[in-house]
C-alpha cells in the first residue's frame, strides 16, 4: 500500500519539508518541488499542498493551481508504477489502444485509475514523441516502443513480479541510446544526415571561434546567415538575440526549448541524444553574444529518460572548462545551465508559457508586449530558442554565414530536420535542405499510397495530393518538423475530431475564444461526422475557426482551427459526402424523441404530441 499522508502525516510532512529545503523554499522553483514530491510520494495531497504553501510563503490555492495544471502532477496518490500509453493518432493507428487494454487487463487497472492493490496506475497521454516507433508507452521514466501484444504481456508479467521498469528494457537503441546513462530502447531512426546537424562534426568548434570574436560580430554573422527559429514560427534568430543584447538589464537568460510537444515531432529527441554538446555550445554562444550568465534547458517530462545523460554532458563540459566560470579560460565569461523538467503540458512549448513554467507558475502564456527578449524569465531579458536553432547557431559560428546561406532557399536558409511518421516504410528523422518538395520527401520515406499529409502537426496544415509539389520552407509550407503521412484508408474527420479534443485538453483556459471556441468546433465536427449537417454548417465552421484564430491570446488558439480550415479547403469532398440538404427548415441534429425520453420516464406517460399511439397507452 502506498503511504497515506492523512494517516501518516508526520512522514509526509517530513518528506515535503525536505523537498522544499532542497530548493531553498524558493517559490519560483515550485514546479521542481512539486515534481519531486510527486516522484517521492506518488501524489500531492491537499495536506502536502498546505505544507508546500507554508514553506514557500504562498497560498495553498496557488499550489493547487499549479498541481491541477500539469498532467504529470496529481492531487491523488498514484501507483508505484505509472503507465502512460501514448494516445496520439499515429499510435492509435498502430494499435496503441489495444496495448492499453492489455495493460488494463493484465494489471487489473482501468484507464485513468489505480489497481486495487494501489501498485499500478494507467493513463493515456497525448504524445510521447515516439511516432516513428509507435505504439509507445512510458512506465515511470522509462520508454517502451514498438509494442506488440506479446511484448506488452511480457512487460506486465515482470511488473507484477515487482521488476523495476528500467530493468525491463529488452534491447538498447542505436547511438547514445545505448549509453550507460540512457540505456533506452528508443532508436534514433536517422534516415538522412544532412551537412549541418547530423553529419560527423566537432561540437565545440563554433564556440571556440565565437570566443575569438566580438559579441557584435556574432549577431552580424547570424543575420547574414539568415538563421530563422526552428520551432515553427521562423522568427529571425539574429534579430531576437540583438534585442536581448540591446536591452539594458542587470542580467539575462538563455533558455533552450526542449519541450517538443507538437504531435508528430521527435527530431529534438534525436538532437538531445546525439547532439547535446552542440546544442549546449550554441546556448553558450548565445550567452557570450548577449552577456548572459545563466541558462535553462526546459526538458519535457516525456523525455525524462534523457535527463541523467544531459546532466552528465553539462557536468563533463564544466570539467572541460566549456561551462561554468571563465569559459575556455576567458576571465569574465561565466555561464552555467540548469535543467528544468516540464510536467506534461503542451502549451509550455509556447515561449511565454514555458517561462511561466520555469518560474514555478501555471504554464499560462504571458501578455505581449513586453516580449521575452525584453522582459522574460523573472522579468529579465530572455532568449528562448528551439534545440535545433541553438545547434544551427553553433554550426554557423564554425563554418560561417556564407556556407549556411548557400543551403536552402532565400528566406529559409540551412537544413531542417523533419520527423516523418504514419503510413510510410521509413519513418524517422530526415535532415534535408529547406525547400525540399513534399514529393521528394515522400519518395525518401517511401509512401506510395500517401493521400494526405499533415505538415506542422495538428496546428499546421493538412494538404492533398495535388499539393505534393509544394516545398517545405517558410515561404511555402512551414513546419517545426512534424510531417505525418496518411493513406487513403484513414478517416480524415476522425483525425480532425481527435486533434480538436487534444486542443480542448491542452488549452490553458485563460482566454474564452480558445477555451470555449475549440469545444464548439469539435461539437460541430461531431455533427458533421454523424451526417447531421448542411452546407451552412460549413460557413459556421469557417467563421468560428477564423474567430478563434484571430482573437485567442496565444499561439495555441491562433493555430488550433488550422486543421479544420485546411481539411475543409483541401478535402471538400470529405465533408460534402456527409452534408445533407433537408429543406424543411428543421435542424437534423435535434431529436425530439431523445429530448423527451427522460420526461416520459419521470412523468410515467407518453407524449400527446409526439407519440402517435398516445391513446393506446
Amino acid at each position, binding site marked *: 500500500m502506498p503511504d497515506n499522508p492523512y494517516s501518516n502525516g508526520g512522514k509526509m510532512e517530513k518528506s515535503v519539508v525536505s523537498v522544499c529545503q532542497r530548493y531553498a523554499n524558493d517559490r519560483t522553483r515550485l514546479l521542481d518541488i512539486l515534481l519531486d514530491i510527486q516522484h517521492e510520494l506518488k501524489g500531492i495531497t491537499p495536506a502536502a499542498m498546505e505544507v508546500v504553501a507554508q514553506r514557500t510563503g504562498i497560498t495553498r490555492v496557488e499550489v493547487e493551481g499549479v498541481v491541477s495544471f500539469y498532467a504529470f502532477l496529481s492531487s491523488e496518490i498514484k501507483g508505484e508504477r505509472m503507465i502512460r500509453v501514448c494516445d496520439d493518432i499515429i499510435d492509435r493507428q498502430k494499435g496503441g489502444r489495444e496495448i492499453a487494454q492489455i495493460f488494463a487487463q493484465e494489471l487489473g487497472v482501468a484507464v485513468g485509475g489505480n489497481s486495487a492493490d494501489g501498485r499500478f496506475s494507467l493513463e493515456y497521454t497525448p504524445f510521447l514523441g515516439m511516432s516513428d516507433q509507435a505504439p509507445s508507452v512510458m512506465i515511470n521514466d522509462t520508454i517502451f516502443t514498438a509494442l506488440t501484444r506479446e511484448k506488452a504481456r511480457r512487460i506486465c508479467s515482470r511488473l507484477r513480479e515487482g521488476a523495476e521498469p528500467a530493468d525491463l528494457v529488452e534491447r538498447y537503441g542505436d547511438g547514445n541510446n545505448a549509453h550507460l546513462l540512457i540505456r533506452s530502447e528508443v532508436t534514433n531512426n536517422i534516415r538522412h544526415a544532412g551537412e549541418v546537424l547530423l553529419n560527423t562534426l566537432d561540437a565545440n568548434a563554433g564556440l571556440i571561434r565565437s570566443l575569438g570574436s566580438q559579441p557584435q560580430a556574432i549577431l552580424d554573422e547570424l543575420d547574414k546567415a539568415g538563421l530563422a527559429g526552428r520551432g515553427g514560427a521562423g522568427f529571425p534568430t539574429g534579430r531576437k538575440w540583438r534585442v536581448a543584447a540591446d536591452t539594458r538589464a542587470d542580467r539575462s537568460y538563455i533558455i533552450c526549448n526542449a519541450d517538443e510537444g507538437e504531435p508528430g515531432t521527435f527530431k529534438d529527441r534525436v538532437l538531445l541524444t546525439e547532439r547535446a554538446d552542440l546544442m549546449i555550445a550554441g546556448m553558450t554562444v548565445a550567452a557570450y553574444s548577449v552577456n548572459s550568465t545563466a541558462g535553462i534547458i526546459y526538458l519535457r517530462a516525456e523525455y525524462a529518460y534523457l535527463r541523467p545523460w544531459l546532466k552528465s554532458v553539462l557536468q563533463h563540459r564544466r570539467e572541460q572548462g566549456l561551462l561554468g566560470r571563465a569559459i575556455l579560460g576567458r576571465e569574465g565569461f561565466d555561464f552555467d545551465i540548469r535543467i528544468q523538467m516540464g510536467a506534461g503540458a503542451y502549451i509550455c512549448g509556447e515561449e511565454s508559457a514555458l517561462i511561466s513554467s520555469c518560474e514555478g507558475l501555471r504554464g499560462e502564456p504571458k501578455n505581449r508586449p513586453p516580449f521575452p527578449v525584453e522582459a522574460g524569465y523573472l522579468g529579465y531579458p530572455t532568449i528562448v530558442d528551439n534545440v535545433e536553432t541553438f545547434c544551427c547557431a553553433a554550426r554557423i559560428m564554425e563554418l560561417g554565414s556564407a556556407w549556411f546561406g548557400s543551403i536552402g532557399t532565400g528566406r529559409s536558409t540551412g537544413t531542417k530536420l523533419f520527423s516523418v511518421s504514419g503510413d510510410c516504410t521509413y519513418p524517422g528523422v530526415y535532415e534535408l535542405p529547406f525547400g525540399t518538395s513534399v514529393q521528394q520527401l515522400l519518395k525518401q520515406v517511401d509512401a506510395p499510397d500517401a493521400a494526405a499529409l499533415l505538415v506542422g502537426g495538428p496546428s499546421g496544415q493538412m494538404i492533398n495530393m495535388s499539393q505534393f509539389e509544394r516545398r517545405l520552407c517558410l515561404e511555402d509550407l512551414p513546419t517545426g518538423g512534424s510531417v505525418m503521412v496518411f493513406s487513403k484508408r484513414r478517416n480524415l474527420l476522425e483525425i480532425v475530431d481527435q486533434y480538436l479534443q487534444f486542443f480542448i485538453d491542452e488549452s490553458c483556459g485563460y482566454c474564452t475564444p480558445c477555451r470555449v471556441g475549440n469545444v464548439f468546433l469539435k461539437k460541430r465536427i461531431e455533427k458533421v461526422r454523424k451526417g447531421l449537417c448542411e452546407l451552412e454548417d460549413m460557413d459556421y465552421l469557417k467563421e468560428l475557426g477564423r474567430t478563434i484564430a484571430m482573437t485567442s491570446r496565444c499561439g495555441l488558439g491562433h493555430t488550433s482551427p488550422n486543421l479544420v480550415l485546411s481539411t475543409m479547403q483541401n478535402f471538400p469532398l470529405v465533408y460534402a459526402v456527409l452534408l445533407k440538404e433537408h429543406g424543411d*427548415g428543421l435542424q437534423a441534429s435535434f431529436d425530439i424523441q431523445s*429530448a*423527451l425520453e427522460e*420526461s416520459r420516464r419521470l412523468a410515467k406517460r407518453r407524449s400527446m404530441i409526439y407519440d402517435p399511439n398516445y391513446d393506446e397507452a
Partner: protein
Amino acid sequence: MKKRIATVSLAGCFGCHMSLLDIDERLLDLLQQVEFDRTPLNDLKRFTRHCDIGLVEGGCCNEENVYTLQEFRRNCDVLIAVGQCAVMGGLPVMRNAIMHSEDPLRECLETAYLNSDKIYNPSNRIPSDEALPLLLDKVYTLADVVKVDYQIPGCPPSGETLWNILEALLAGRPVELTYEQLRYD
C-alpha cells in the same frame, strides 16, 4: 399586398411582446403596412394563412414549445428569434447547469417542487397533469431546433430596436442598429 406577421412567446415572459408595444403610436404606421396573423396581440391561436415574418420570443423547454416553433418555421418565410431567451435560452436555460447529475431533470423538479424551504406544497407532489406538456431534457434555443434567419439579442430588445428592424425588413433594406441599441449593460 400587406405583409403578414405572426408572433408567439414560447418559454419567455412576454417582455419582448411588451417591448413591441413600446413602439407606441408607430403601431398605427405598422398596421398600415402589415396584417397580424396568429399572435397573442389579437388572440388568434392558429395560423390562418402562410406568413412573411414570424417573431418568436422565448426558447424551448417543453414539447409544446417545439411543436409551436416547428409550426412557425413551416408557416413563415422569415423567422426571427427575439430576445435573449430565444437566442441563448435566457433565464430558463439555467436549469441546463444541472449537468453533472445522474438524473438532471428529476433533480431540477425536486429542487423546484419538493426540496426547497421557500415553497408551499402540501401535497408534496411534482405536478404531472395530462394537460401539461412534457418537459424536454434541457432547454434548447430556437436555432437548436429549427433554422433561424435573424437573432435579436436583448432582454428585452427595446421597442426602438424592434421598430428599426421591422421597418428595414419591410422596406427590403439592410438593418442598421446603433451601438446603443446593441448595448445591454
